[in-house]
């Protein structure tokens, strides 16, 4: 789980120190303020630094290579140096990441001329944890069949998060005690979808009243919930996981957003760390309503604002502590414009 990120001169972030909650993390900001970049950065760091090798020396060598490759592939830049803040007086980017529950931080830097060279600073003692999951703004269960193979073998305009997600969806279902443990949340999600997610011959279906509906024929909002459900069913999302979800509200009607907020808070209460980036005031309020009913879930809010060419970040434990809430200001301005005419 991601504990902190200290960012210096990375893309639009000249300087930002972020402390995350082990529960629900909500990133708010207008277009172009780096919300998705923040999600991707957290994902890349967590994905690359998973301690999957016992030998620390080879782990660190592999870590630098993986980090560089992931940064380029997830951000879609031509090389690593392009991710350094584009300002004449800036040469080096520095990022420090803290993970729960470790005290040491992964401290790295690279410069504008880096193709794929990363320098690590100090000692970093990583941990083993479930692979993080990144949900882009669109689902992939409707295009799953052959998608991962196409991404591996062809030049396609999808960043690496799509391939990672396809790989996670390719895992088979849990069974036995582990499957029983997740049954309540799966049953809740199936109630929302009014059906069950099944996979036959590499294709996803929604089974409703014993009828199989091909995923492309299912509403996009439902497809998103289906993707989430299947990843819980196959153990890709489990206690200790971190889920990054970019604009989960897109293509969801308000009624489904109520259920989405409920799901996000329920997953957080099950020990899953969640990061979302959102534009929706409606979703923010539904989350607030859910959090009031689940005081055990810790939330953290981050408001991003473009100041000149750089982005500033305000953070706090409630929405009241951060400004600006772009969607709130836009809603108030809309009321003003309406009131001028009536």
């Amino acid at each position: 789980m991601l504990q902190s990120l200290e960012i210096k001169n990375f893309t639009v972030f000249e300087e930002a120190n972020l402390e995350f909650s082990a529960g629900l993390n909500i990133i708010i900001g207008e277009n172009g303020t780096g919300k998705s970049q923040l999600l991707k950065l957290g994902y890349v760091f967590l994905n690359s630094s998973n301690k999957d090798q016992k030998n620390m020396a080879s782990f660190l060598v592999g870590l630098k290579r993986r980090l560089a490759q992931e940064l380029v592939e997830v951000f879609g830049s031509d090389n690593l140096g392009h991710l350094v803040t584009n300002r004449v007086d800036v040469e080096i980017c520095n990022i420090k990441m803290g993970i729960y529950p470790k005290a040491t931080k992964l401290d790295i830097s690279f410069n504008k001329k880096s193709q794929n060279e990363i320098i690590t600073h100090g000692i970093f003692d990583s941990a083993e944890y479930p692979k993080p999951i990144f949900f882009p703004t669109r689902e992939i269960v409707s295009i799953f069949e052959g998608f991962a193979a196409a991404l591996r073998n062809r030049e396609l305009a999808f960043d690496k998060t799509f391939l990672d997600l396809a790989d996670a969806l390719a895992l088979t279902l849990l069974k036995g005690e582990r499957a029983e443990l997740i049954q309540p949340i799966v049953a809740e999600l199936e109630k929302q979808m009014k059906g069950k997610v099944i996979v036959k011959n590499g294709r996803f279906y929604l089974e409703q009243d014993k009828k199989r509906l091909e995923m492309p024929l299912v509403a996009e909002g439902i497809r998103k919930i289906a993707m989430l459900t299947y990843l819980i069913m196959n153990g890709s999302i489990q206690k200790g996981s971190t889920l990054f979800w970019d604009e989960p509200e897109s293509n969801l009607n308000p009624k489904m957003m109520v259920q989405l907020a409920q799901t996000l808070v329920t997953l957080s209460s099950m020990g899953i760390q969640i990061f979302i980036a959102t534009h929706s005031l409606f979703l923010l309020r539904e989350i607030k309503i859910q959090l009031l009913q689940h005081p055990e879930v810790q939330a953290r809010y981050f408001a991003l604002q473009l100041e000149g060419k750089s982005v500033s970040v305000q953070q706090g434990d409630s929405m009241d502590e951060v400004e600006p809430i772009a969607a709130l200001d836009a809603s108030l301005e809309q009321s003003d414009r309406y009131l001028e005419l009536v």
Partner: protein
Amino acid sequence: MSEYIEKRRAFCFPDQFQVQKYDETVFYDKHFKKTGKPLDPIQKRKSTLDTDASSRGTKAIDFVAFDPQQSELWLIEVKDFNFPMARISLTELIDIMVGKVIDSLAGLLAMRANALGNEQIFALDAIQKNKIRVVLHFEQPLKTSKEFPQSIDIADLKDKLKQRIRSIDPQPIISSMEAPRGVPWMVE
């Protein structure tokens, strides 16, 4: 019940309540409103709708009230957008509200120290309260439409007010005649 008129509405407080129309107190009207830095000319022009604010250094909330047996001090501002002349932008409304609350709290402290007679006693008792409750009594324009069943989403206004005033009252109230939100007075 004791009745006070503000913006053509009757505010009826329970008998035991101590209430001051703060801007009508001698201490505020004759002394405290001249205190502080006067508004600059640009701000004065912007504030033409709030004539009080354009002519003085400190602003005043409409009512200061408390129940002697309870711990809350109520600071109440009244706005009625049914009168087109009363309409200002919602951001400006929140700015003015916050300014009035801060100025009025400072005014009560000064009133306790320097006012005479009943006003000093009122301020003395008011300052003893250990919970400050901020209330915006807000009447929406009655004309609505399908797209705007309420011209202004009160949740928007409340969230904005909370952002700005949470160190004074983390749960400010926006009430109206239709939705009094549990305030202990009535409005007619």
